[in-house]
């Protein structure tokens, strides 16, 4: 019930949402009537004052908590202090509160109001600190409930004030009340019950989900990485959208507004992975982690799909996995087969004839290789595959030195670049040269060993290195 029209002051005051029938209602009524009529707070009886102060006490805390927001709460504070003289200014405040039509306090809100009432004034700047709702004593709740509608009304104002502050202010501390208010609904019923909307939630699906996720993670108190990340996220969002968040969450949780498609926005990169729970998904830390894992797996499957030929037509993880397995097996079989073939070919390997097998531009590079008079002792024989051409042929693998094909120059930059590998190479070719020479190049045999002895040390060194 909303007291929209302040027909009569005391009546309005009484019409405020006093859900619970309270015996002191009549006392208050009489007290207020006396106040208005006589303008003499002193007329209040002590009992009435005590009962009144009870309410005022509970509401006074709220007043202090919202002291920075509006002046009337401060006057409430005065009223608490005075207990007598403050009642007069309190009434206009109540009147002003009555004019706030947007209120629709209800039972759930009473509870929430009661919870708010438990917060001290110092908590308001500390609204940013996470409320430990568990610390709210239940007996306080009951006491506040007994306070009834007045508390509710005042808390309506408080809520309004908060949302006003949230909407109005731009500093980051604003976001904290949001999270606080977001958390307010946590310990109680998940339904916020905040039906009023200060600012239209303009399709801020992401924030609502953010808070939803935040709520979910808070509820479960999970310390998982993702939920921590999202909590942090929720705390440092833009302040302005947050104004609508607190109200927007109500809709989201109530399902009153269908938010449409969820939007997964890119997370700011922080220390850990941020996950956002999609709408309709569980916000459990386990399910979040599982979702991350599933996404990783699907990512890798896509990668594999590109690698394995013929996987594009296939859809589905199971069949793709079969394809991958088949492909790996076929590749391994191919390796075996090719090695068998190479084994037959290998004895006929004629590295002397290798240049003929290579493209012509390589032959020039290989020429010094076959030239025994070439000073090979500099750093092993050249593998002057100095490739100005770089092709896909893996035999051009050593074509790393860009210098032109110059037997003298190619070697050194090549070796300088790859000192270790080229020593291997030098030994490699040298070994083959020796081998080949012994096998084929009889006529040159006497020339090669002359220079070969200089390498024997290098060869053995390389030989050890070549132990696979």
């Amino acid at each position, binding site marked *: 019930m909303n007291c929209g029209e302040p027909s009569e002051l005391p009546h309005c005051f009484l019409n405020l949402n006093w859900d619970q029938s309270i015996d002191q209602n009549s006392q208050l009524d009489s007290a207020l009537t006396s106040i208005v009529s006589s303008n003499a707070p002193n007329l209040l009886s002590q009992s009435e004052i005590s009962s009144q102060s009870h309410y005022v006490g509970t509401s006074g805390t709220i007043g202090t908590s919202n002291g920075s927001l509006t002046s009337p709460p401060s006057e409430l504070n005065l009223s608490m202090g005075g207990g007598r003289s403050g009642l007069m200014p309190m009434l206009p405040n109540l009147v002003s509160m009555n004019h706030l039509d947007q209120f629709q306090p209800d039972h759930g809100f009473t509870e929430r109001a009661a919870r708010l009432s438990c917060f001290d004034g110092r908590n308001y700047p500390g609204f940013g600190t996470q409320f430990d709702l568990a610390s709210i004593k239940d007996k306080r709740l009951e006491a506040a409930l007994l306070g009834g509608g007045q508390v509710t009304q005042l808390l309506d104002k408080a809520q309004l004030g908060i949302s006003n502050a949230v909407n109005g202010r731009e500093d980051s501390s604003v976001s904290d009340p949001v999270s606080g208010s977001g958390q307010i609904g946590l310990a109680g019923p998940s339904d916020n019950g905040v039906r009023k909307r200060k600012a239209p939630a303009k399709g801020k699906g992401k924030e609502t989900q953010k808070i939803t996720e935040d709520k979910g993670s808070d509820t479960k108190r999970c310390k998982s990485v993702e939920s921590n990340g999202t909590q942090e996220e929720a705390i440092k969002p833009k302040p302005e959208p947050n104004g609508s968040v607190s109200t927007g969450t109500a809709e989201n949780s109530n399902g009153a507004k269908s938010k449409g498609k969820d939007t997964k926005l890119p997370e700011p990169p922080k220390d850990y992975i941020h996950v956002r729970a999609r709408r309709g998904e569980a916000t459990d830390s386990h399910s979040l982690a599982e979702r991350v894992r599933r996404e990783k*797996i699907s990512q890798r*499957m896509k990668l594999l799909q590109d690698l394995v030929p013929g996987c594009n037509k296939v859809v589905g993880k199971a069949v793709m*996995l079969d394809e991958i397995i088949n492909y790996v097996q076929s590749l391994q079989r191919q390796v075996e087969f090719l*090695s068998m073939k190479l084994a037959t070919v290998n004895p006929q390997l004629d590295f002397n004839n290798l240049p003929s097998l290579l493209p012509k531009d390589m032959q020039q590079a290989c020429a010094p290789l076959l030239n025994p008079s070439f000073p090979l002792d500099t750093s092993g024989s050249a593998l002057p595959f100095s490739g100005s051409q770089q092709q896909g042929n893996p*035999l051009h*693998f050593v074509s790393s030195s860009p210098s032109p094909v110059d037997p003298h120059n190619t070697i050194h930059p090549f070796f300088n670049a790859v000192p270790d590998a080229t020593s291997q190479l030098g030994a490699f070719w040298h070994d083959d040269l020796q081998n080949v020479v012994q096998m084929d190049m009889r006529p040159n045999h006497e020339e090669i060993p002359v220079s070969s002895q200089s390498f024997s040390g290098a060869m053995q060194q390389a030989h050890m290195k070549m132990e*696979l």
Partner: protein
Amino acid sequence: MNRKNPLPNSNPNSPNSSMQALHFLQALARIARAAPKPAHSARTRQIRHAAYASMAHSSRSSRRTWSRALLHRLRQWQQQRPGRLLTVRRRVRIVTPITSRPEEPARAETLRQLVPGGRGMEYCNLLEETADYVQCLRAQVQLMQTLLDAFSS
């Protein structure tokens, strides 16, 4: 021989396969040199080992789990002389034993057996390793094919 020298990347195509080809050719040469007894099967085996070793030593795969596992396996193979029927295989289980997880499909176990080192990995990492392994395998096959063509022509 555990140098992982990355060749200077002036080769735009694939320094990985360069490294791989390099090692493979070396091994081939060594095999050719040391082959007075050309038992075909022995040679085949040697060449196969050489192929896998060169795969494991490629620059891209040097940090991979499968390359280390492959080398380990290779050592076992080499220690195992042909003709010995009984070999003591020491299975080093690095990670907790894998019970078939409900997450992964049924064929994952087969994949684990195929990919070296696959047994100790989670499914997610297994897929990644498989991708890398497939890449290296493909490069190796291409290399051997090219060599064959070059030598037999």
